[in-house]
């Protein structure tokens, strides 16, 4: 019944570093990141693409890592929450989430950080409505979203070089 699974060798650039890993053909990227590569910043919530906790960028495209097979990222670039800060310097989205108190339990936060960074690269000056729609796939059961949205819009200002 349990046939041995063929492990596949995959090479990808993960947070800027060339990385090789082994995965099962049906293993999703979220599991490989956490269990094989020990990048446990990426959280798993629903495992069905509804909650956004496992949001990562694959070739700069925002996706749920639970809905990507690890084997699909062969030759691609993956960015997780671990790759967002510049060394010890937080990304403006991270800094503003801290300043605005845009998190409580923190489970949704890595996904929010990655999704918000993708938003601001795609649209440096989003309206509140645009930010809310872009982040609608990142569920937060603690904050009520308002502080997250304020933090993201404030980060956008910082990134545009405007005074907060």
């Amino acid at each position: 019944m349990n046939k041995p699974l063929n492990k596949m060798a995959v090479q990808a650039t993960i947070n800027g570093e060339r990385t090789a890993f082994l995965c099962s053909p049906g293993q999703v990227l979220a599991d490989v990141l956490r269990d094989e590569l020990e990048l446990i910043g990426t959280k798993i919530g629903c495992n069905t693409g509804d909650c956004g906790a496992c949001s990562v960028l694959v070739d700069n495209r925002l996706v749920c890592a639970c809905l990507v097979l690890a084997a699909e990222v062969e030759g691609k670039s993956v960015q997780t929450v671990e790759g967002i800060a510049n060394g010890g310097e937080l990304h403006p989205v991270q800094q503003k989430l801290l300043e605005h108190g845009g998190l409580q339990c923190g489970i949704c936060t890595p996904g929010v950080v990655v999704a918000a960074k993708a938003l601001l690269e795609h649209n440096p000056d989003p309206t509140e409505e645009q930010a809310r729609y872009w982040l609608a796939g990142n569920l937060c059961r603690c904050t009520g979203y308002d502080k997250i949205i304020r933090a993201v819009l404030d980060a956008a200002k910082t990134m545009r070089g405007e005074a907060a």
Partner: protein
Amino acid sequence: MAVQEFLSPKSLSEAQAAFGEGAASSWLAGGTDLLVGIRLGARDPSRVVDLKQIPELTAIEIDDASVRIGAAASAFDVLHNSDVPSLFPGLAEALNLIGSTQITGRCSAGGNLCNASPAADSIPALIANGAQCRILGPEGERVLPVENFVVGPNQNALAPGELLVELILPKPVPGTSDAYLRLTPRTEMDIAVAGAGVSITLDSSGTCTAARVAIGAVAPTALLVEPAGEALVGSPLDQAAMDAAVAAVRAAAKPISDKRGPAQYRTHVVGILVSRAIANAQARIEEAR
């Protein structure tokens, strides 16, 4: 039991060889339905064949007569194509409604169609635009209109080993526009209670010369309602014509009652959505003049 093989062919012929006999294989486009299905135990392929390394499957090509959208091209890529959203604003509205930003980045019109949910947003928009499915199989190629591609809830017309390669939409003639509307209890992240896709063509005097009306989530499959289109043609989209079109879609609707709404409500609402979608398409045509 579990996926035993992942294959990533680079061409259509490699894809057909990779798929094999088909009984235990699944095509993978964006994976937003397949991987959820595997997770929930509804799907159990032993072999997954990824389609996204095949150029035809992700290409979006426009020539004088038609727009060809690769079956695995992501909704995000279609929405950010330089021409498709302005040629088919209604199709763009429908694709933009499929899930979150994360889902839109992966899901495809072809996958939405193959998954064949009665409530799929892109299917009424594709039907309204007269989209055709180019299908490649062991026996060769065939072409099917989208309205004949879905044969039941979550059932499509593909035979084992057949592959939906691309969707071919005739380029709209001048004076044409489309629109898609759906009703959900919330503004985002939900599935349609009812949906309506329309494409209409108006001559310079505002008389309707062609119309296609499609409805979703109110029958086992999305439906092309030919009598609704016929009711509009020849009219200036006046109240009598609109009333006749609305009556035709309500007569065609055969919804179920479920947690998203009773059948009577869905039948009523789909008529309203159709009349508003017609008005939106009409406004787009007038704006372009």
